């Protein structure tokens, strides 16, 4: 049970989360090591840019790690983060609201076996950091171990989201015309549109991981997200829908083609709802469109493959490694390497470099998604899936970009194969019970399939299935993989992290559709 589950009312204010910095002093405007922040006599090391950013010194890090290991923890790491996020919103024709947030802090983690002590502070002084470290140290109960005496900067990081122009160099005046143009284009696209709202955010986060092995890893993590939402009216009825795009990218992400697509998709996905019906309730064949249908994988298998649930024995996949769980043409990966994708990372939040992790290879379950605790438990190398929302949270095994590789069938062949079923193309959310395996995803747009053809549009229907059983029922996979460009956020234990997902066109022979019977 997470803290989030206890929040009763008034939790609607999350819409502006995620963001970026723009003019508000990208971290480079911070003073290096302002008075009173350093703990020792060492000045900021010239070789490590972030010490200056965070206003801390190597000596201060060394003393904090020593305090963290003062009760004999096996391992400790410090996660410094300085994240500046800005979002702007357009409503009723004008960009009349902006939000900026600055987060600066350090999380101290002490690991003993698979037990975790965690504390953080937003005050980067020696006293405050040492006090946090002693709190986290309490997970262990033994003689003090020495911290690292020297540090080395890990320099072999890949670069998966290099920006031509940093967000700090983009003025608000450059963004306003973009939003105003999208607003005008949406109204122009269809006379039924009565309201348009836009939110645009960008973020620049600096992270530094320092661990008890003396390793220092630093990364700069940009993110941008733009969403257009509209309400249409027809014969006294209203419908609402939208489209959003996101990536670890800069301002050039917003190419004319992408901006056109945002308007086209948001408007057409809304206006088609006037013609849409709800599909019948019960078990039906379901065809998932290429792209954001990857939400099926995220819920049906991804979460269940996160190694923390498996080392605890609570996942439905706990005893299924090396066993066939799907047709041999099913291959599923979780990948941190897709350049500029929302789910891409150069380094995870424990300082490990992620690659491409096969979850299912030729229908056989291959490996879990590991953080460093589970990797040690299973005696494997970490897969670079240790992620956290911010310095306020300890890392957990989390997905990055989860998708299915292309298969042997053709999109048209799959549609033509269904006599009576549904085709799902656009989703808003999903959820899973890890151990029982039941999962859902919510279909906002799709079509009925009748006699091998897409017929009437459908809307607003929840699909519910059981992970392993549904994977067995994935009986056709097309060759048209699309990784979705949408702004997906994955929630777990009250922590949200950005992810991507993708799928080729896929047929599930039967799954429960929460429609209505007339």
């Amino acid at each position, binding site marked *: 049970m997470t803290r989030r589950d206890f929040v*009763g009312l008034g939790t609607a204010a999350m819409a502006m989360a995620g963001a970026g910095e723009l003019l508000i002093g990208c971290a480079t405007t911070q003073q290096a090591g302002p008075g009173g922040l350093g703990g020792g006599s060492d000045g900021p090391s010239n070789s490590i840019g972030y010490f200056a950013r965070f206003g801390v010194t190597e000596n201060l890090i060394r003393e904090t790690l020593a305090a963290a290991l003062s009760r004999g923890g096996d391992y400790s790491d410090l996660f410094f983060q300085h994240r500046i996020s800005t979002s702007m919103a357009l409503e009723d024709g004008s960009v009349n609201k902006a939000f900026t947030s600055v987060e600066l802090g350090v999380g101290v983690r002490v690991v003993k076996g698979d037990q975790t002590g965690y504390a953080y502070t937003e005050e980067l002084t020696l006293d405050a950091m040492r006090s946090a470290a002693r709190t986290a140290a309490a997970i262990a109960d033994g003689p003090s171990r020495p911290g690292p005496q020297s540090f080395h900067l890990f320099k072999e990081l890949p670069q998966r989201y290099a920006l031509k122009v940093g967000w700090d160099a983009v003025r608000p005046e450059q963004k306003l015309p973009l939003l105003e143009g999208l607003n005008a284009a949406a109204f122009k696209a269809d006379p039924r549109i009565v309201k348009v709202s836009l939110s645009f955010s960008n973020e620049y986060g600096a992270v530094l991981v320092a661990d008890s092995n003396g390793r220092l890893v630093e990364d700069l993590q940009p993110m941008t997200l733009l969403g257009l939402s509209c*309400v249409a009216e027809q014969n006294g009825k209203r419908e*609402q829908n939208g489209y959003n795009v996101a990536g670890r990218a800069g301002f050039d992400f917003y190419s004319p083609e992408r901006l056109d697509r945002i308007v086209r998709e948001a408007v057409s996905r809304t206006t088609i709802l006037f013609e849409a019906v709800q599909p019948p309730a019960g078990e039906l064949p379901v065809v998932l469109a290429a792209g954001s249908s990857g939400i099926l994988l995220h819920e049906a298998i991804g979460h269940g493959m996160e190694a923390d649930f498996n080392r605890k024995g609570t996942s439905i996949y706990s005893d299924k490694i090396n066993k066939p769980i799907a047709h041999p043409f099913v291959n599923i990966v979780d990948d941190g390497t897709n350049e500029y994708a929302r789910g891409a990372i150069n380094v995870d939040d424990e300082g490990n470099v992620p690659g491409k992790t096969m979850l299912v290879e030729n229908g056989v379950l291959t490996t879990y998604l590991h953080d460093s605790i589970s990797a040690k438990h299973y005696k494997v190398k970490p897969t670079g899936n240790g992620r956290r929302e911010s310095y306020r949270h300890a890392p957990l095994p989390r997905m990055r970009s989860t998708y299915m590789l292309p298969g042997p069938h053709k999109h048209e062949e799959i549609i033509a194969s269904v006599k009576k079923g549904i085709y799902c193309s656009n989703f808003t959310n999903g959820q899973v019970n890890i151990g029982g395996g039941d999962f859902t995803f919510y279909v906002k747009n799709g079509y009925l399939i009748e006699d091998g053809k897409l017929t009437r549009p459908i809307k607003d229907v929840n699909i519910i299935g059981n992970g392993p059983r549904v994977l067995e029922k994935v009986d056709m996979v097309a060759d048209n993989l699309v990784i979705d460009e949408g702004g997906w956020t994955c929630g777990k234990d009250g922590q949200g992290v950005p992810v991507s997902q993708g799928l080729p066109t896929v047929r599930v022979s039967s799954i429960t559709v*929460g429609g*209505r019977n007339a």
Partner: protein
Amino acid sequence: MSTTNNTNLAEVARQAVDLAKKQGASEVAANAGRTREVEVQWRDGRLDKISEATTRGLSVQLYVDGRYSAVSTSDLRPEALERFISDSVTMTRALARDEHRRLPEPELYAGRMEVDLAIEDPNQAKLSAEERQRIVRELEAAARAVDTKGAILSVTTAFGDVLRETYRVSSNGFEGGIRGTQFFASADVSAKDSDGRRPEESDFAVARFFADLPDATTLGRRAGERALGRLGAAKGASAVLTMAVDNRAAGRLVSMLLGPMTGMALQQKRSFLDGKQGQKVGSDRLVLTDDPHIQRGLGSRLFDGEGIAAKPLPLFEAGVLRSYFIDSYYGRKLKTRPTTGGASNLSWKLGEKGQAALLADLKEGILVTGFLGGNSNAVTGDFSLGVQGFRVRGGKLAEPISEMNISGNQMDLWKRLVAVGNDPFAYSAMRTPTLVFEGVQFAGV
């Protein structure tokens, strides 16, 4: 500005208001806040995780030349803060003018009740690490004690406590602070089913006062029973049935009703309740008031996030929609007097019967104990939600069901509310009782 734990929040907020005015803001409101929280997690016989932290932060609403922005920061280093506010004011000037963006009219601040809401437990600071660990240990032991067949795979229990303080200052005359504690306890239990599934269930409680939590043995036992109750769950046939919703789960339905009642939803034409004030949208059983002054209430407050004095607000009377949640901005846009931006505590007109008696009355149907995913379309009221729970046969709980779904439209659903329990769920500000709806579409096999 000091940033130690002794920081005076009122002083921080006042300084931020001064700083913003100096940088050119015409109006400004600042909230300074601090949260101190401790959490202990226990799993399968040993400590799994401890975490402890103090968060502090400042958020500022800036009104500059008829333009608006909101900013927040945890970087309270003096140089950084000054630059932050100065940059924020500059950025705000780049935005469009909006005549509706102003601080609330000062008369809305008036009439604040001068009562002690009893939302801070003075004994929180005395809670020891040993006491927290005793609770999580007892929770596990109680959960395992109900398992006579060795079906339980793993038990994770948690206990935590929080002290949250905020202070708000606005340049047009509002000042007010709030301090409150919360304690929570939970037990998550996984069990092994004969077909290889590992269903999980939990129980939890959250309260303003430590003494208001149920004892660990009761809570742990309920979690164990709930998990074992999921064994053998299967999909039932698609059908239209009477649905009882457990008081703990019912908040999900209520939140999809309240969401479209905000000024933003109305003004942006994103509400199926637009234009329905004064109309009957539910059965006579739907009687709801927003009550900010409940002693020890999880949502209790003397003023809302804008400083508007909190007052009881009738929401539904005999199914008739009485009020919306209107903040000062959307109140101006809608040319209507603000009420408050969002709900505090809900106060229900309760029925006479508990859940067991309600199930005996309904005879055939489904008791929903949990929702899984799904959504409600705020514009049309159409919803589709995953559910799990139990069949009710002959007025009694029968086999567990899972992997099912309900669908409908809220304008229809709330008219089908035929019974309300006498059992408000104490561990949520929504305080929902068991709710019974007739004629709900379930999808399964």
